[in-house]
């Protein structure tokens, strides 16, 4: 109970600060909107061909993740910036709990922020890129987004704690993050293509879902083992 109260306090503090400044949320949302506009108008003719061809129509799912992953990096980069710049991290390290709780507080806050951005940006994506109903496959999109978010935020939050202590921290997170996240990205793009395609293969879907599940479990266990070492100078 005590641990949950402490975790709640960590999350609440991030949400209050974010709602007050909106720096992370607004940067992420504006980036996604810009990405969708550029992709829509830049590849207008190509997209028209794709939308007419049932064999390749699912590939628009990739466009969703192009925007989401770069927006996520933008937000994840700021995860520990306030703690580092204002020197509050030492204050958190003084608290009487297992230090991985600091990670879980940031993890849950980041998941909430990413989900808010996705809820706001998905209608725009559908408006720009989707012409046929995918209601019957909506469950798959929801599961893909949840599994994708868990992996992205699990990896990103941990690497953000590492990169914030480096001199070129804005550069460091993408350099560390993208090689590690590529397997997950392939998985979410594959699964998203099944969402927007008229036909899908349930066996393949199950394999990719299992793959994402295993990936998430690995990177959700890791912080328990390494976060204590990451936050020590």
């Amino acid at each position, binding site marked *: 109970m005590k641990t949950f109260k402490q975790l709640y306090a960590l999350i609440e503090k991030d949400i209050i600060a974010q709602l*007050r400044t909106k720096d992370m949320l607004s940067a992420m949302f504006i980036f996604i909107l810009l990405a969708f506009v550029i992709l829509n108008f830049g590849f207008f003719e190509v997209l028209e061909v794709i939308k007419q061809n049932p064999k390749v129509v699912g590939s628009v799912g990739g466009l969703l993740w192009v925007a989401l992953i770069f927006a996520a990096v933008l937000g994840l980069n700021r995860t520990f910036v306030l703690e580092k710049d204002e020197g509050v991290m030492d204050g958190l390290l*003084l608290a*009487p709990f297992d230090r991985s709780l600091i990670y879980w507080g940031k993890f849950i806050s980041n998941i909430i922020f990413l989900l808010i951005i996705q809820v706001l940006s998905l209608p725009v994506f559908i408006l720009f890129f989707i012409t046929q109903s995918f209601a019957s496959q909506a469950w798959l999109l929801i599961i893909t987004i949840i599994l994708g978010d868990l992996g992205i935020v699990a990896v990103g939050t941990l690497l953000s704690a590492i990169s914030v202590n480096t001199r070129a921290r804005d550069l460091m997170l993408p350099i560390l993050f993208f090689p590690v996240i590529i397997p997950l990205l392939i998985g979410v793009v594959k699964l998203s293509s099944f969402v927007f395609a008229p036909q899908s293969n349930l066996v393949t879907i199950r394999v990719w879902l299992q793959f994402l599940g295993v990936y998430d479990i690995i990177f959700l266990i890791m912080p328990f083992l390494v976060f204590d070492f990451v936050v020590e100078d």
Partner: protein
Amino acid sequence: MNKTETDNYLEVKNLSKIFGRRKVLSDINFFLGKGEFVTVFGPNGVGKTTLIKILSTILNPTKGDFCLEGVSAKRDPVFIRQNIGVLSHNPYLYPDLTAYENLRFFSHLFSVEKVDERIDYLLELVGLSERRFDLVRTFSRGMQQRIAIARALLHEPALIFLDEPHSGLDPLAVEVLDETIGGLRKSGTTFIMTTHSLEKGLVLADRALILSAKGVVFNEPTKDVKVGDFKDIYLKQVSG
């Protein structure tokens, strides 16, 4: 001198810290009695802040250990953190939260009971009750440090570390800090303070420690030491 039970309230044993190739602390040994006020003096870069960070479990020592009430920091760092408060030159406050929100946040981290009552009392103590709903970002350095005093005292720690707490403070904040320290000393709180001010450090302390690259080179009660004499001792110890 006979050791009493309270002499070993805090026991520091062979503490060393190495950053990369640089040895910052080398075999630090001392003990502290309950209710005692010890000031740690030393030149810049000798490791005073590192010592405070290790004793407050922010950093792990490369070698050695310390015990609070017989409990080893290596075995139970959470016990240490429950019993200590740290007031540094950095206030450890979130600028985009109000004073009240900051104190409520840290109260929850330290599982403080009757949170609002405690915050009301501490804000009154540091004279910032009327600014409780203002963002910390809008506070002056002295006011932030006064909120930091409240933050450090939220969970009523028995041992308080003061890392150059007077640096950059306005006279009012210095007065608030000194009055608070005085009140806490009467109630039996133990203190370790680092400072560059020989006079301030000596006036407040029961015992003075001088830290040099060789380790603790001076560890004596302050009651018979005059500031002028201590300055000579200090210069001799840190230059030798």
